[in-house]
């Protein structure tokens, strides 16, 4: 039999095969143990050596060629069959997902963590301090005169002590009114350079409303070294606000202000990120938002803490306010509500 004709015949049949069964049959008829190619090869023994060799090579080539062809076709048929099957598949992807019970971190913790991270990147070590504090560390050492209004009952929570009048300033206790008590505590026990960030809870004895709480959180920054300047304060505050609000266009401005423990003292405004200073209801059309108090550490504070020949800056910002701005929370009292309808949003 002519091998070329045989090849043609098989290729024609291959062309006509439409499913795996046809192919299996084809394989069996031509390539199988009792297939045509085997038959031809077993009938070769009557030929001479040269002819046997030539035919053997040709048959082998044909065999390999056909195997490849059939394999290819098999794969093509399988792929198209899978495709067909897939077309008929159905999954309702619009069904709601299974309810996963996730826990929630308090928004103040989230804001606090972010601030701790930012100040750590800026080179500040995170330090904490006591909430029940003596008047010396909260007021006197911070250059608050004895008759300063912040020391009055309407601003400060006093701890009941029967013999208060006879006690020294270091023995009279209050709930700290700011995290600045940690400034004095830290400076008493550490040598400059000092570069700390102090997050913590503070207390004010005042009526609460949407913006005022009896207890809220602050983060305080303190940097003391040989030549710390207002320029450094501006540098740190600008970076911190740009990082926190994730906006490189945030600008700040310093205005004169007064706090007993700094001189010069500043009120720091940041550009309104809501309207990009075009004027909106959030910034009352001013383009600026009052954000924190700051200043250069008062030399009297340094001498109370036993430091000299240094300068430094300090600033304090309400974490509650920063969290409210970030998460657009309209009322500060949500933070201490313990209400999961609020907490589960974070």
């Amino acid at each position, binding site marked *: 039999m002519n091998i070329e004709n045989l090849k043609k015949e098989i290729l024609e049949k291959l062309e006509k095969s439409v499913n795996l069964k046809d192919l299996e049959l084809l394989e069996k008829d031509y390539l199988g143990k009792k297939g045509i190619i085997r038959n031809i090869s077993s009938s070769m023994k009557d030929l001479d050596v040269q002819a046997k060799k030539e035919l053997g090579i040709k048959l082998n080539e044909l065999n390999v060629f056909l195997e490849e062809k059939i394999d290819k076709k098999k794969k093509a048929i399988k792929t198209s069959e899978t495709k067909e099957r897939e077309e008929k598949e159905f999954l309702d992807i619009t069904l709601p997902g299974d309810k996963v019970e996730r826990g929630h971190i308090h928004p103040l913790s989230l804001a606090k963590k972010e601030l701790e991270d930012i100040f750590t990147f800026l080179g500040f070590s995170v330090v904490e301090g006591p909430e029940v504090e003596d008047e010396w560390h909260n007021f006197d050492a911070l250059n608050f005169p004895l008759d300063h209004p912040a020391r009055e009952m309407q601003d400060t929570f*006093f701890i009941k002590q029967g013999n208060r009048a006879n006690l020294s300033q270091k023995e009279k206790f209050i709930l700290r009114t700011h995290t600045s008590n940690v400034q004095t505590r830290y400076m008493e026990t550490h040598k400059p350079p000092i570069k700390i960030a102090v997050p913590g809870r503070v207390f004010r004895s005042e009526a609460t409303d949407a913006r005022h709480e009896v207890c809220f959180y602050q983060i305080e920054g303190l940097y003391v070294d040989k030549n710390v300047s*207002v*320029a450094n304060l*501006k540098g740190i505050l600008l970076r911190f606000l740009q990082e926190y609000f994730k906006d490189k266009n945030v600008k700040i401005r310093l205005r*004169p202000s*007064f706090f007993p423990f700094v001189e*010069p003292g500043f009120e720091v405004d940041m550009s309104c990120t809501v309207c990009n200073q075009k004027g909106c209801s959030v910034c009352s059309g001013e383009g600026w938002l009052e954000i924190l108090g700051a200043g250069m550490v008062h030399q009297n504070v340094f001498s109370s803490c036993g430091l000299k020949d240094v300068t430094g800056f300090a600033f304090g910002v309400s974490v509650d306010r920063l969290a409210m701005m970030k998460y657009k929370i309209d009322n500060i009292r949500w933070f201490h509500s313990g209400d999961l309808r609020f907490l589960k949003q974070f």
Partner: protein
Amino acid sequence: MIISYNWLNSLLKGKLPKVKELSDKIVLHAFEVELPVKHDDDYALEIKILPDRGSDALSHFGIARECSAIFNLPLDDLKVELKEDKNTEIDKFLSVEVKDKDCKRYSARVLTGIEVKESPKWIQDRLKVCGISPINNVVDVTNYVMLELGQPLHAFDYEKLSENKKIIIDKLKKSEKFITLSEQEVVLDKDTLTISDEEDVLVIAGIKGGKKAEISKNTKAIVLESANFKGSLISKTSKKLKIRTDSSYRFEHNIDSNLTVLALDRAANLIQEIAGATILKGVIDIYPKKEKLTRIFLHLDYLKNLLGIDVDLKDVRKILRSLEIEILKEEKDKIELLIPSFRKDIVAQENIIEEIGRIYGYDKINSVIPVSEEAIKRNSNVDFANNLRLIFKEFGFSEVYNYPFIGKEDKENFNFNKLIEIENPITVDSEYLTPSLIPNLIKNLKLNLKYEKDVKIYEIGKGFKKNGVFGEKRYISGVSSKSFQNIKGYLEELFESFGIKNIEFITNEKESFFSKKKSAIIKINKREVGTIGYLSSNVLESLGLDLDPVLFELDFEVFESEIKKDKKYTFISSYPIAIRDITVIVKKDTFVGEVLKSIKSLDSKLIKEIELVDIYNSDLNKSVTFRIYMQAKDRGLENEEINKIQNKIISNLIQNPEWEVKK
């Protein structure tokens, strides 16, 4: 303080910028300003004078001085052209005796031939813009001059003074009743500083005048008083009497003693002009201890280093001059300055640097990120708290923040003692600092069960207790509506996640708000770390709870100190695991933990894990099934070995005569 735009401008040579720009600039260089309010052709500007600037800035003149520095406009001279009556000396009509040193200066004039009537419109208009109602020309002038110069003045009806026309300034020897100008009756304590004639108190010094010598329509002659009192004393008296006036507000800030005569003359001059008065010759001016002016050295290096900008010396000079700070001497590296008496806030060179900085403009200082050699120290407490939050979040717990306060009711319900008490609590249910986070967490739970089916909440916070000292201690506490076993599982996993393996739950023998039989002390590495369990029935009943929550409270510091620094990898064997189940029948009230302990007492390296797979309760007994997983690191286990371990466990178990191992 309210400033009239027109009035302010009249005190300066040259024109102020428009009201919006004016207010923006004052905000940047000096004080906060509220939105201006229009009044006919004038504006009222509410300026918030900083507390340390009360001595110089609580007046139109003070603000004009600021504007002069900010806008580089010269101040106009105050015209005071008095025409005294040369024939009548004041000394023949009035005498003054200052008996107390808290009256730092007392100046007075006598005016006669006065016609008390309405003030001219321009005075009335300016007072109205500043929020003061006009009364009559004499009183209006005293108010006008106070708003203009910052010096409070007082006018008495001369004829109403007692016979000898003598004014005495002294502290009261005994408490006394007094009726103020606004007909309010007050009781003045002993030691209140007053101004009196020889019979009655006329004025509470620096605070408020009285009815006796009030100016009336019929007043013909007046004594004009312009004095200076010690600020802290006025502040104390004003608070005690709960009377705060424009006068006391200014005196509290220790205004300039040098203002008295200037203001007095200005007022006398105005009254003369508008009420046709005759001014008697001379001023009574008692000023026993003249105030000394402060001298300060400004070091130029320090100025540069503190601001972080090099301000040109020419600008420094100009700014100082504009603020009326006199340069006494200039040296190479420092300048000696003389501080005017009205700037009581300037006592050190940092104050001068602030003045230069703010007038020069803080916006001119560039931001510079400081470079420090100080290495950052990690705070393990803060890290631990943050890690806890992540794990609780994985567990499905939500974090709450509570006030650290509780009231008497909770104190009694929970039977707390040694509490720290607040002297001035904001409400009755916040009298104490709470020693535990649990009471407020229970309130949270109650609130949330209104909206949620299952609640798991926790707080990381402080408890407070008075143990000789005022102590504060950190806790990790939680409450849940779920079961003891459920919450115990979370805690075990919590400890495990920090690499703590040696955890025990031990019968709670303590008296506390935890139930005695239904709670456990938790120990890690044999150290007590906290408690888990249900509330004691007493507390539960007094709280009136209709649920029985599971609570835990862990000592933050103990927990943290027991954390292994790093977890340790254990070898994973690839040989097959052999499993045997052992079922033990014990009495119903036997702790399963006891059985487990017995099984664990066989310290075999081949036991990989013991799992509780089933508890079946019958009437008196329960059968507890454990699954023992056995595996060797280096080989497959032979049946013989496995049986040997199983038999050993069983023989250990049956040493307890009450226990039976099911065959």
